């Protein structure tokens, strides 16, 4: 579980996060949504410890990040897995080496043990024949799956994903969404996903945080988002005609 209490973050004169308070539940897919510039990426980077908030606190299973020493913070980060928007795979390494990297760096396992774990996680993300390929030789969807495999190889407690569907076709995007949800349940981890994708919101949004201008505007689940009267949320989520019709049908069905 991650508890966020009143965090503020500014860059020069720009006050990006203006007192966000929320809680991300363990074993659930928690989604952060909002328009571009609403502070989603800055919020995610604060959760990852890449940015330090000027005010407020972030607690990981009861440990306040700001009160930890730099060594303890690094140890805590080893319990986090991150899937970046552009996958952020290391260009000079093969797929297997990318996935093995965190284990090679932080564990004393033998080469064969690490190899077995790499085989297991690559199989888990449905990638069995790409071990010796370089990131530039595989598709965007495969890169995302490698990034997920690398993020879960150390059995993290927390999984963060920044726009995991960006640049993917709808079918692959659904596969990636389902994969993240399955892994969250399987490993009972706290997953936080930053997304613009409304399909993801409807499919896997067990808890949704809507940010607007650096504030938390709304919080709820994918079921509640249909019923909400919050104008900012409905304007954002139902900006397309298709979703407007879906919502209308849902309301009519209820009535």
């Amino acid at each position, binding site marked *: 579980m991650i508890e966020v209490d009143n965090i503020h973050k500014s860059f020069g004169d720009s006050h990006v996060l203006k007192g966000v308070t929320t809680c991300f539940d363990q074993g659930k897919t928690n989604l952060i949504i909002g328009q571009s510039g609403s502070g989603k990426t800055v919020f995610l980077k604060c959760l990852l410890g890449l940015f330090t908030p000027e005010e407020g606190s972030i607690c990981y299973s009861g440990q306040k990040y700001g009160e930890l020493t730099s060594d303890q913070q*690094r140890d*805590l980060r080893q319990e986090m897995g991150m899937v970046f928007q*552009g996958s952020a795979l290391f260009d000079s390494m093969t797929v297997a080496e990318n996935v093995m990297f*965190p284990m090679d*760096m932080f564990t004393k396992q033998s080469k064969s043990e690490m190899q077995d774990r790499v085989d297991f996680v690559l199989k888990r993300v449905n990638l069995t024949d790409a071990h010796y390929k370089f990131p530039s030789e595989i598709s965007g969807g495969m890169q995302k799956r490698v990034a997920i495999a690398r993020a879960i190889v150390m059995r993290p407690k927390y999984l963060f994903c920044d726009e995991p569907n960006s640049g993917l076709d709808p079918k692959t995007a659904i596969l990636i969404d389902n994969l993240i949800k399955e892994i969250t349940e399987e490993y009972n981890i706290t997953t936080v996903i930053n997304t613009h994708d409304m399909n993801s919101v409807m499919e896997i949004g067990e808890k949704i945080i809507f940010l607007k201008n650096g504030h938390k505007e709304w919080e709820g689940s994918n079921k509640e988002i249909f019923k909400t009267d919050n104008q900012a949320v409905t304007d954002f989520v139902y900006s397309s005609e298709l979703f407007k019709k879906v919502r209308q049908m849902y309301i009519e069905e209820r009535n």
Partner: protein
Amino acid sequence: MKYLAAIGKYFIMVWEVFKKPTKWSIMKSLILKEIDELIYGSMGIIIFIAFFIGGVVTIQTALNLTNPLIPKSLIGFATRQSVILEFAPTFTSIIMVGKVGSYITSSIGTMRVTEQIDALEVMGVNSLNYLVFPKIVAMMFYPFAVAIAMYVGILGGWVAAVFGEYAPSGEFIQGLQLDLIPFHITYAFIKTFVFAFAIATIPSFHGFYMKGGALEVGKASTTAFVWTSVVIIISNYVLTQLLLG
């Protein structure tokens, strides 16, 4: 003020490079890879430049020694002094800033743009140690390259003198052996170590802290080239004054 802040940030970066070291088994292979990339991969251009610069120094010296009372051995002497004191350490270093420095800035800068550095940080890796330390260690082998540049530069001078008929081989070699002060070689290597450290760290600084996209990677490489060259030129002057002045 902006420059002072950047200088302070650079020294903090250097301090961070030596903190929380990466596992030795991984670091060892990174160092070997960087030696191959930065030093071994630069040997061709270093040898090529040193040979022809040595030849040019010899020709210029010979053409300016028009007085028949000045012995031809002086051509060898002047070539040796010029190559050892300046051309091999300083000129080669400026070339290395262009070749190795821009490679360092663009490779680290691209990692920044594509969030690979963020990925390292999230994993709990000291990204500065992982990326910059192997480059610093590899560049500590740079004096070997400069030693080869000294040898090849003098060889280039000898070839130009003998085959261009500016001085007979015997007299040129006699000049090479004339009044050699061993400390001059020590001085050349001391400044080579300083240049090597600058070539490894200043381009790394510009790559690591760059912001933006692909265009900014190119701009950062140019800025790194300019500032590393400036630091080399100034430290060359200061070290010469301190050690020989």
